[in-house]
């Protein structure tokens, strides 16, 4: 049987100041860049140029895309339009939509020369080209952030009810940290923010919250089990105990996102990259942000109620059963190893 990180007892919390420093080094310049330059929104948000092309033979979208890619016009959207010799291309050159009129002409020319090289001059003709507005209303960005804000409030309330307000606050702050690092990450790689990337950020919010709560659940359990231990040790113990699960789950999710990064092609790569980073930062923040913040909050506003956190009680089962309490975590790992497992 393979067991990874079983009975580990690393002192994770000790490195919290290093972790703060590291995350600060990532967030602050990235966020400064974001404030100065903003993000590179995709054609869905900015609009671009719509070009209708008539080809003499049914060339197929693949060939058109190859021609555009070769000329460095990426992220163009190519659609067959009615007949197999009619195509609509939505494209944009440059990173941000400049003054609409000039960039429309420039984009049309760039596409024209790209197709001339890729297909030949006599193989196609332009039916029309014109400026095209954004596909997604600006209100979507606002609404997405509003939605995240409200979901934080609901999470705070839920965790205050199921755990205790300190846990809720720590989990929400950790998730907020993940949003900041992800924005910084997107900014560093200058990834195009498309709807798919917005989707990835939203997935990240759910994933990171999920991960934090799994660790907090263990903290809640251990707080009831070892009433005399201090929180520092209990946090370490809980992180160590959930370590095999973390490794496994992040392994499986990372495997899927890496498969998408490497194999899914240009269209899904930004999504897959953001998700890969999101898994990384979500895991990091559960350990190094959520747990230390909980420790800090507990020091700042001490209350014995953190120990009274409610535990989920399935009907007919005992919530806490520790017939043979393992030795205290700070002094060493669980001593008596059972050989029942194969």
């Amino acid at each position: 049987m393979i067991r990874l990180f079983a009975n580990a007892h690393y002192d994770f919390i000790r490195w919290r100041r290093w972790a703060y420093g590291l995350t600060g080094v990532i967030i602050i310049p990235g966020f400064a860049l974001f404030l100065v330059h903003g993000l590179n929104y995709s054609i869905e948000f900015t609009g671009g140029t719509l070009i209708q092309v008539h080809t003499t033979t049914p060339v197929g979208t693949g060939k058109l895309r190859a021609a555009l890619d070769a000329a460095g016009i990426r992220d163009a959207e190519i659609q067959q339009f009615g007949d197999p010799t009619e195509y609509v291309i939505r494209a944009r050159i440059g990173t941000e939509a400049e003054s609409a009129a000039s960039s429309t002409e420039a984009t049309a020319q760039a596409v024209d020369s790209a197709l001339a090289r890729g297909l030949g001059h006599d193989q196609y003709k332009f039916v029309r080209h014109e400026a095209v507005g954004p596909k997604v209303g600006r209100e979507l960005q606002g609404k997405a952030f509003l939605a995240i804000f409200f979901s934080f409030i609901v999470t705070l309330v839920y965790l205050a009810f199921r755990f205790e307000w300190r846990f809720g606050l720590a989990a929400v702050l950790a998730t907020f940290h993940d949003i900041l690092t992800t924005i910084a990450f997107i900014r560093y790689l200058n990834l195009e923010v498309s709807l798919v990337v917005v989707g990835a950020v939203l997935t990240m919010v759910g994933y990171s919250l999920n991960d934090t709560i799994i660790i907090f659940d263990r903290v809640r359990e251990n707080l009831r089990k070892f009433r005399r231990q201090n929180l520092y040790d209990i946090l370490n113990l809980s992180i160590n105990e959930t370590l095999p699960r973390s490794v496994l789950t992040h392994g499986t999710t990372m495997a899927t996102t890496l498969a998408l990064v490497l194999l899914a092609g240009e269209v899904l790569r930004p999504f897959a990259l953001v998700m890969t980073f999101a898994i990384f930062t979500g895991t990091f923040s559960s350990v190094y942000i959520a747990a230390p913040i909980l420790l800090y909050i507990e020091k700042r506003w001490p209350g014995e109620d953190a120990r009274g956190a409610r535990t989920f009680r399935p009907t007919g089962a005992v919530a806490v059963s520790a017939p043979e309490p393992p030795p205290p975590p700070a002094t060493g790992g669980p001593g008596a190893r059972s050989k029942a497992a194969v």
Partner: protein
Amino acid sequence: MFHTIRSRLILIGLLVVFSVWQLVPRDTTERVRDVTTGLMKDTVVHRVPVNYGLDLQGGIHLALEVDQSKGPVPDPAEAIRRAERVVRIRVNEFGTKEPVVQVVGGNRLIVELPGETDPARAKSIIQRTAFLEFRITDMKNLFRDALPAIDKALREAGVRAAEQTGAAANVAQLFGPDTGKAKAKKPKAKAAAKPAAKDTTDQNAPGALSSLLFQGQIPGEYLVPEEQVPVVDSLLARPAVQRLIPRGIELKWGTDVSSRAARSYRALYALEDRPILTGEELEKATAQRDPLTNQSVVNFSLSRRGGRIFERETGRHVSDYMAIILDGRVQGQPPIIKGQIGQHGQIELGSKPLQEAQDLALVLRAGALPAPLTIVEERTIGPSLGKDSINDGIRAGIVGVALVILIMVGYYRLSGLLAVSALTLYLLFTLAGLAAFGFTLTLPGLAGLVLSVGIAVDANVLIFERIREELQHGKLVRTAVDEGFTHAMSAIVDSNVSTMLTAMILWLVGTGPVQGFAITLIIGIAASMITAVFVVRTFYMIWLDRRPDMVTLSV
């Protein structure tokens, strides 16, 4: 509740049957382009009822433009920008599709709907966002007075009245004596009609047009038997008839169909050709039931400018009837103007159901477009992603899922195998859920699905790790499995419930794509809870039941 293996298997079986039934290929209507004629037509296709997005399979492409044929629109570019917002809201209300609404070249609006299964409905939704105006009906009965002349012109052109409708000569009183103004004007109209009839060569022959029209309940309202609607349309379209329609009067069909004596009639309205107000000035419309009278009403408010115009116009037209016209169709029966109306008005619908009031309010809100739009182009479009991108995505998805399977089976062995077989059920349930919600699957959606497979095993990982811990504490296999499940539950429930809450907020607050994303998340979480906890637990129960003496567990 489900303590026996049998009851659990029955429940799982029911879920599987339900999911498979959701995904069974069935007949769906699709709009496709006829290769020979180049026209769009509806065909019935037998396919799996999962909608694919514009990026995977294409759809219908509609181009809309500001209609300037009925008078110039002052600022078409501004009008189209405002229309974009309204159309987007309407199309999003249409469901969790992923439509494209885009302004092109400053004067056109593109609407693309992925593989629309009911194109008629899609079009009607967009049409419903068309031009709204208020007009006064033909209070002076100018049109009725002109009918004899029209009949005469038709007779001269050789058009005869259809025999079966000959029973009612001239403009007939179908519903007994009228009330109010219509009644007062009736004798005059009859008098005007009679001398006209005398001019004809065949005195007993009913008028070709007038024999098809029956006087409605209010001035300017005529009822046409449903089957005669095309006939009336073709008669009215004749240039000779067009010339004779009195100046300042326009004819418009109503949306209401009323049935009397086993026949259904459609309303035709004679209206002033000048609107007193257009939808541009309308700001709000809400339906409610008047608590005192228990009548359905629609309250509306206008812009400041609109309020001033409306006040002036309604002051001039007290006790006249005002038709609400949307995209050239009179909506419901025109209400009577009871007095001068300013910025805030109320439309009383009497004892009609509240639903009707809500529909009218919706029409008023949605119709608040600054200019009429016409569909200038309708085409089918191919997928916005090439075959190569789609294939890449699918290949990556398969590799991703295979890696998850490899990791799970390699690490947890037989237990991992149980989790993996539960995963197939997870995929089945999720797809069925998406189909049941009419969700549109896009390539990013597929990527999300692949990712969710990675996340879905999390619950099993939690459970298996717990079981290992319990075994490590020296527990018997059966106890370890039981306690592994119970102890992992709190983590699974809390983490999934909070993610579910987040998804629900996204669904409530977000628009379009964000909502679509939220629905995938909600369905995915629900499916993974069912499979990872319930299904895997059942597998364990069966396993332990077969091997009660099991000392070691393959986990």
